[in-house]
């Protein structure tokens, strides 16, 4: 991407941007105003529509608000909601477990497979592009749609899987199995994404180094470990963070299958069950949401530190 842009810019060779930026104060008044607007308007939008509401949710988590009525009806109840979430809400523990399982499985399955596919496809292989396209295709489908498509395979009475295996398993309904079945479907989509990220990362491997390793008589595995792996380190961190965030945010697929109940409890579905619908335990649901925000923030911070470090280099 960079190379293209630079070529278009007409300099003819890769260009390393200078670190020192221009100072705003050398601008005319009019331009200063424009610069200010160009920053403040989008910032207001993002703060108003994302950060503000996020803080609102955190505040609400300390109240017993039911989502109806006005300020006067709101009682602050301290940590009551959090106490209830952790001690008096049976679906909470399974939800945490499922999110953790989701995460672990995503690492062991789609992430490893995606990496493996990338390594395999990052060769001069005939039809490499076609393979890439096929593995990448599910990424454009929404998780809700993925749920529908897999239902045709998983359905107890009409699904393909039971017809082929001659079983009567209720893949999406049996609470001991459905999480795994959903993970296969969700992993089907995630793998292509991971593959793509690693493929992009692998492009950065210096072919000369690879050649050199090959000349030295290094085997595939050693070349990978010594030449390729170190280069992929930044990608690894991105992949870890994306996988964590995606695992935590997993929602659509469980929601379309059974509203995230009965074996498919996830924190995201519990939040939704509590804050929408007739339930409107807004304070309680917000406590669940706050737990999500806190966990996300840890990983968002890791991500930001990584990308900002890249920026500074």
């Amino acid at each position, binding site marked *: 991407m960079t190379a293209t842009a630079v070529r278009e810019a007409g300099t003819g060779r890769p260009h390393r941007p200078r670190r020192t930026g221009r100072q705003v104060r050398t601008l005319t008044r009019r331009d200063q105003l424009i610069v200010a607007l160009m920053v403040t308007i989008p910032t207001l939008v993002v703060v108003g529509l994302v950060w503000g509401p996020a803080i609102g949710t955190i505040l609400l988590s300390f109240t017993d608000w039911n989502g109806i009525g006005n300020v006067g009806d709101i009682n602050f109840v301290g940590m009551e909601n959090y106490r209830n979430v952790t001690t*008096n809400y049976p679906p909470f523990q399974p939800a945490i477990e499922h999110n953790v399982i989701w995460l672990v499985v995503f690492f062991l399955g789609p992430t490893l497979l995606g990496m493996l596919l990338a390594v395999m496809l990052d060769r001069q292989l005939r039809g490499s592009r076609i393979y890439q396209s096929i593995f990448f295709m599910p990424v454009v489908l929404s998780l809700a749609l993925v749920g529908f498509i897999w239902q045709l395979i998983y359905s107890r009475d009409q699904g393909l899987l039971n017809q082929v295996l001659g079983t009567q398993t209720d893949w999406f309904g*049996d609470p001991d199995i459905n999480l795994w079945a959903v993970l296969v479907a969700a992993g089907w989509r995630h793998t292509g994404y991971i593959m793509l990220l690693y493929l992009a990362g692998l492009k950065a491997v210096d072919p000369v180094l690879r050649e050199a390793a090959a000349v030295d008589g290094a085997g595939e595995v050693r070349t990978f470990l010594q030449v390729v792996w170190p280069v992929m380190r930044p990608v690894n961190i991105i992949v870890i963070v994306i996988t964590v965030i995606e695992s935590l945010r997993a929602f659509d697929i469980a929601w379309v299958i059974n509203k995230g109940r009965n074996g498919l409890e996830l924190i995201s579905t519990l939040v939704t069950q509590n804050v929408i619908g007739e339930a409107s*335990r807004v304070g309680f649901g917000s406590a669940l949401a706050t737990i999500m925000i806190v966990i996300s923030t840890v990983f968002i911070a890791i991500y930001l530190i990584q990308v900002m470090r890249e920026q500074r280099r």
Partner: protein
Amino acid sequence: MSPRSYGAGGVPAMAIGRRTMLKGMLGGAGALAGLPLLSACGDDSGGGGGASGTVTFGSNWSDDVPKKGIQAMMDAYGKGKVDINTVEHNSFQEQINNYLQGGPDDVFGWFAGNRMQFFAEQGLVGDISDVWSDIGGGFSDAMKQQSTGKDGKQYFVPIYYYPWAVFYRKSVWQEKGYEPPATLDDFKTLAGQMKSDGLTPLAFGDSDGWPAMGTFDYLNMRINGYDFHVQLMSGEKAWNSSEVKTVFDTWKGLLPLHQTDSLGRTWQEAAQSLLKKESAMYVIGMFAGQQFPEGAERDDLDFFPFPEVDSAVGADSVEAPIDGVMMAPRPRNEEGAKALLKYIGSAKAEDTYLKSDPNNIGAHNDADTSGYNALQKKGEELVSKAKTISQFLDRDTRPDFASTVMIPSLQEFIRNPNDIDGLTKKIEDQKKSIFGS
């Protein structure tokens, strides 16, 4: 591109926009500054559209059969234009809170009982007592009571109800020589017979979480009586009481008679197994008929009342949820909305609806029963003979309790029926925290 730039020219709108935007940014506290619909609407309605103006109608009758019924009913209105806004049934329910607070349609579909009272108490539903003074004569006291909020005012116009019972196919029963059982013991014996005949005794699908409530309600009312049901639902009785444990225990004994893997099956899929003659019985509402193709198949459907468990309690409580309509607290066209409600509360409107959807029974006393099919007639008889009529677990108790506690708990029970003590204690603990707040 902040929202205020769309304040649409009006200075006040802009000012409010900016203020609320800021409040929103400052966190939840700002966002809670009262119900906007109170100030927003209202003045528009006085403008004199009158009874002849357009009335908006929010419909959750999204399935094919009922949708046609509503359309037919509105087509026959004739006193003004009705704009129907149909929203998918489940989505409507999920969004009901936002919907009611966001300025609902003038008239909209909902359910009777506690589920209506809950919103009436919050001021989210319009008082239509004056409509009732006109239409009241056409309804029984029970109907009126189910349409009345806790403050004694009316908020709801019933259209139809549908009894829950044990449904079966006459042809299958004739062929096998089964007879409707009157007591639970007979019921179990019969189920054993069905099993040996290669049939699943009871169709069952609880993927959506609510169908199992019907079974729970019936067992509870048969074992502990209607009054206990009411007290349990209102939070007065404990869920870990011995009474409730007996209900679960009895149910546990019945579970082997149910279709397995019920948690992954919708009620409609379970109805298919009855249709395909794989299951012999089905505890469900009369709307199950919607799943049976019109004609011979639908005519083959019959039911018997949920059997008696304890002869001291009897079997004269019937679960018969009522569906109907409510009015926005401040409709844009109040006059028109009330005129429409009067029409909906008439026998004529109900007859029109039931012609398209004969899987329910008209709520109006004068609803034309001559056109009823055998099942409707039987259903009407069942309900009119009933000593007490319950709505349904999720209509008789707090909605937040029903959806966030009872659905997962009943599903948990179906999954693992052995830890009744643990389960009921968990329900009671959660009940206390919800009802106490």
